[in-house]
């Protein structure tokens, strides 16, 4: 939305004093209709970083209010999925797990997966859920899905602590590759945000998205090597398999923490590229649709 340019340059404190605003560099806002693709306007997003912070803070604070178990839900979800997977796929199904105990094999994948799936679901519904804000006040709309994905980092942190405890229990020491973890988390975040941007913008127009999301996450769960290792696939296909960015994330997590899958690097590169394409295309589509949000939502 090129049309709406905010020219910052006025320090906030100067505005609050309100002595003679004319003497300062006054921001000028131009409003006119825009057509076609719009720039991302990341500067406006930066201007509103405090709002982003407060929205994340709100989501984190409110998420487990009036629940009995509170933040324990952040752990229960991946942990019990791991228990079920271990029973049915590990024990009964006899699915290989790259030579590590199946519970930790699946849990190491479920931690980033839960972060991704929740981020995807939350951000897809974020715009519609914030309809009262969108129709009443201006701010860069990208803040909304972005904050709902970022708020999941706290839950990720909690379930990650359990992962560390499990590693200690199984006597597994992380390798030096653990330094890649922040990058892998970022990759999961970028993927969730990329899909979230597409779906949240579509959801404003087409509430079908609400029904697509649970189906999509379920499908995606099985298209990602969580219950099984990607080594089940023969090589040329495995790299293409990584077009699903969560393949790179999940295999990367196992590689960084548990030292599995030595061929992870091309996988991660492929996944990163796919995630980047998702994010950039999602961001541009979002910006293009943004101008009608307030009218349609």
């Amino acid at each position: 939305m090129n049309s709406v340019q905010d020219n910052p340059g006025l320090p906030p404190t100067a505005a609050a004093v309100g002595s003679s605003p004319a003497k300062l560099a006054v921001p000028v806002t131009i409003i006119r209709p825009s057509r076609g693709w719009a720039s991302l306007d990341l500067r406006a997003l930066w201007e509103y970083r405090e709002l982003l912070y407060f929205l994340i803070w709100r989501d984190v604070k409110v998420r487990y209010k009036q629940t009995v178990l509170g933040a324990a839900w952040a752990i229960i979800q991946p942990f019990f999925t791991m228990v079920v997977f271990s029973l049915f796929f590990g024990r009964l199904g006899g699915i290989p797990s790259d030579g590590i105990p199946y519970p930790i094999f699946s849990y190491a994948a479920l931690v980033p997966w839960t972060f991704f799936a929740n981020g995807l679901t939350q951000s897809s519904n974020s715009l519609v859920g914030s309809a009262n804000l969108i129709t009443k006040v201006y701010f860069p709309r990208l803040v909304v899905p972005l904050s709902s994905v970022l708020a999941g980092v706290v839950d990720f942190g909690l379930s990650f602590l359990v992962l560390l405890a499990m590693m200690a229990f199984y006597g597994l020491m992380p390798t030096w590759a653990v330094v890649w973890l922040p990058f892998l988390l970022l990759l999961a975040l970028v993927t969730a945000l990329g899909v979230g941007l597409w779906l949240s913008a579509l959801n404003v127009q087409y509430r079908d998205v609400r029904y697509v999301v649970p189906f999509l996450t379920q499908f995606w769960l099985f298209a990602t090597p969580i219950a099984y290792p990607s080594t089940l696939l023969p090589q040329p296909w495995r790299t293409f398999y990584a077009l699903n960015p969560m393949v790179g994330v999940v295999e990367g997590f196992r590689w960084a923490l548990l030292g599995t899958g030595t061929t992870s690097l091309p996988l991660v590169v492929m996944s990163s590229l796919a995630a980047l394409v998702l994010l950039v295309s999602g961001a541009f589509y979002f910006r293009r649709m943004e101008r009608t949000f307030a009218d349609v939502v």
Partner: protein
Amino acid sequence: MSDVAIRVEGLGKVYRIGAQRVAYGSLRESLTQAIQVPLRNATSLLRGQSRENSEAGQTIWALKDVSFEIKQGEAIGVIGRNGAGKSTLLKILSRITQPTEGYAEIRGRIGSLLEVGTGFHPELTGRENIYLSGAILGMRKSEIQRRFDEIVAFAEIDKFIDTPVKHYSSGMYVRLAFAVAAHLEPEVLMVDEVLAVGDLQFQKKCLGKMQSVSQTGRTVLFVSHNMSAITRLCSTAISLDGGRLLESGPACDVVSHYLASTMGTPGAAIWTDPGSSPGTNEFRLAAVRLVDGAGMAVNVTNIEQPLDLQIDYLVLKPGLRFRCTASFNTGGTCAFSTLEPTEILRQGSGRYRSTVRIPGNLLAEGEYTVGISIFASRAKKMHYCKVDDVVVFQVYDPVSGSSARGDYAEGLSGVTRPLLSWHTEYLR
């Protein structure tokens, strides 16, 4: 040019008001439709068009060809009927939605207040909501911190500041929400009708706050149905009708023209058919009019302007003796009643006119309805006619300095506003 805060040129906005539904003839037809429609939607989706654009629905120009300028530090009122485009204008200027055509330029940091309590979360405490709502309205964290105590004091909720707002009474909620918004300090403030909330006392406080905002040199764009608030707070006003700019100019002129157009017949009720007008076989009401000094029927009047209430009637039987009375009512209370001091004999049959002069500086600002009653109670008891709310008129005060308000433009109670003289002496 540099002292123009808001410049609007040819602004317009189209809304689609839904496509016409196709009537499905048969199951087969409806099935093909069921397949075609999502397909068509999907293709338009890929082209990046909104669904609304692709369907040939009916369109409505919520705003069309609106141009005006607002100088820095000016308070401008936006008035118009429901659906006149006021809110659309405000939404465009506060960047919530895009115009379909035209151009607008705004100099200075913009703050908009389209709703009280934007972004409040019921589960969060008052303290937390002050920060959240402040951030959503565009305040910096440091700014909120600095003004936190002021906000809490203004809202009068200091005891409950750490209670979740879902436990607040609706009054407390509104007070807190407005307090946050009132401490927003943009150079250009846009406000929509938010003053229509809270109890009377708090509304006055809000109007006072608005007044002080416009006095500090900020530009205020104020949408309201409260005409007396507009004439008090705003120097200029624009009036919209059907999305078009009807008039712009001094607030009192625009408001009085607007009121004159909404009230229909200007300050007069006239019965042309004596057979059906209020009255009896001996007496028929013909007209009730409010006229200004020049004899023109009015229904909007400056508070300092005297008014004449004229009651025209036909006496069909000579020698009737009765008196005319009138009562002036506002907001469910009677401001005053007035009557002919004695029952006067109407000797001949024919048309009469009884006139009573309402001096200037008597009624406070607001909307009044006039009821008349004509009766005899002395020699003979007889009710000739009684009509409530026969004419409606509006009193406004442009705060020119010579009315009872002097230079005080904030809330002032009472239904009468006599111009009294004050005297202060130094005693020791």
